[in-house]
């Protein structure tokens, strides 16, 4: 009985963290960000300074949009960003951050190109890694310097079946990403 109660608590705890998204634009008041989520996805309801969305569960695909103060733009590298950086240099910092967080996992770069985010010029990185269980994931990462903040969007899904299936919806959504500060 006690085990059952714990299981119910855990289960309900998980369910409460995510909520259905309608057609409206989702806003983070803490971070002054907004985005129109991919249709039919759910969003994280945990109050935080990033907006997180998934369709089939965060262990499958995940779209995260957020902002960091410029001087703490790349915390794992202990480095900031500034307006003087070329978009390609910003992309290298983002890749370094990924590699540092990934430890021994190899991050394979499949593409790196100029891209806009929130109306600003930045980069779009396309990378692949294999997790400890042996599952391959593809990721897209966008980043720009916007005044005093580094804005980023990150989409990750298994290479098999999911990444390409949801990519177009994610890119459409990321194109609506806006910052208000």
């Amino acid at each position, binding site marked *: 009985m006690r085990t059952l109660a714990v299981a119910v608590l855990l289960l309900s705890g998980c369910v409460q963290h995510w909520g259905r998204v309608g057609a409206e634009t989702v806003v983070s008041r803490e971070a002054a960000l907004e985005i129109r989520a991919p249709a039919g996805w759910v969003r994280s309801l945990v109050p935080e300074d990033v907006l997180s969305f998934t369709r089939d569960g965060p262990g499958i695909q995940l779209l995260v949009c957020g902002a960091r103060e410029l001087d703490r733009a790349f915390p*794992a*590298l202990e*480095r900031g960003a500034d307006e*003087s950086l*070329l*978009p*390609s*240099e910003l*992309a*290298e*910092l983002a*890749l*370094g951050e990924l*590699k*540092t*967080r990934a*430890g*021994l*996992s*190899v991050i*394979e*770069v*499949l*593409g*790196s*190109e*100029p891209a806009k985010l929130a109306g600003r010029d930045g*980069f779009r990185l396309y990378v692949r*890694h*294999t*997790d*400890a*269980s*042996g599952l391959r994931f593809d990721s897209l990462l966008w980043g720009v310097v916007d005044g005093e903040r580094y804005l980023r969007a990150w989409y990750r899904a298994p290479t098999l079946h999911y990444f390409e299936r949801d990519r177009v919806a994610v890119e459409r959504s990321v194109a609506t990403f806006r910052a208000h500060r």
Partner: protein
Amino acid sequence: MRALALAVIAAGFVACHTAAEPAPFELSPALDELDPAERRVWSSARRTAQMIERIGGVLPDPELEAYATDILTALFPEFAGALRVRVLAQPVVNAITLADGSIYLFTGVVARMENEAQLAAVLAHEGVHFTHRHAYGDRAHARAPLTDSTRRRGRDQEREADRLGLERLVAAGYAPGEAVRALEHLVEIEELYGAEFQGSQATHPASVRRVEDLAALAALHAQEGRTAEAEYLRRTARARVAGIEEGLARFDHRFVLLELEDGVAANAYPRHVDYFLGEAYRLRGEEGDEALAEAAYLRAVERSPAFPRAHRALGRHYLKRGRPELAARHLRRYLALAPDALDRAFVEANLEGIEGGPP
């Protein structure tokens, strides 16, 4: 030093628990000769090894693996086949041994060692961790927080590995003083990374003290012996460059500068080595580093004109400093030398910005 990589491996390095100190192996044990508890520790180590393979952490360098394994066989002939070496592409000056005899050498340690005898000293130390079943003996302390007792135990094991490793080194015909030099490289790293490094080495005795102890032991032996510097530099060339590249990719300019600012060490690298040095100055970003970086990039282009990334670096450097003609010249050269570069679109955008049209 960023200790993230070490944490990943540590999960397999330390495992479960028993009380008595295990006796050293006399010969290579077969898995079915081990008691069930030790077999579980080995299985855990093998799962860790498989995980490292899956995530792509191992540098594909079979020649270096064979070279290091041959050195290990000379050091531990009775354990031939039981000890295996893999190389991890990380700018970490360290090596790790799993319970089953899998030894992982980080490219950082390969880069900092100056000759075969120094690498042999590292491998002899790591091999003793296996023959003396340190990982199995550690299982009592696996998931517990570090205490004085576990720290002491770890330090005792390190001293034992230093002492017995030195005996193996001498028996295999290497110069004993090189073991001391190898440990001195660790002191340099401690000084460079300070508290960051100390955190990852909490179970190790202070390296300065270890150097003193090892030097006293080494002095008891005849000092002559093999060093095999040229052979070492040739066989490790690829791994050393991989370590530098990973260091730069993770914005760790400290390791790269330590390795390359010494002109003697830099001579062991390819002709375009000054590109790496220039990148390290750029990443450090202190006063005067822009000029140091530019000079290093120029040297790289002089010495190795067909190395693409030195041209890209110069192109960016001039682009950001208002010298568009020079920037365009080097960026065009980069694209000509690396037509399939993954960042081609960035460079084309730079050229478009300079010249007002497609390159």
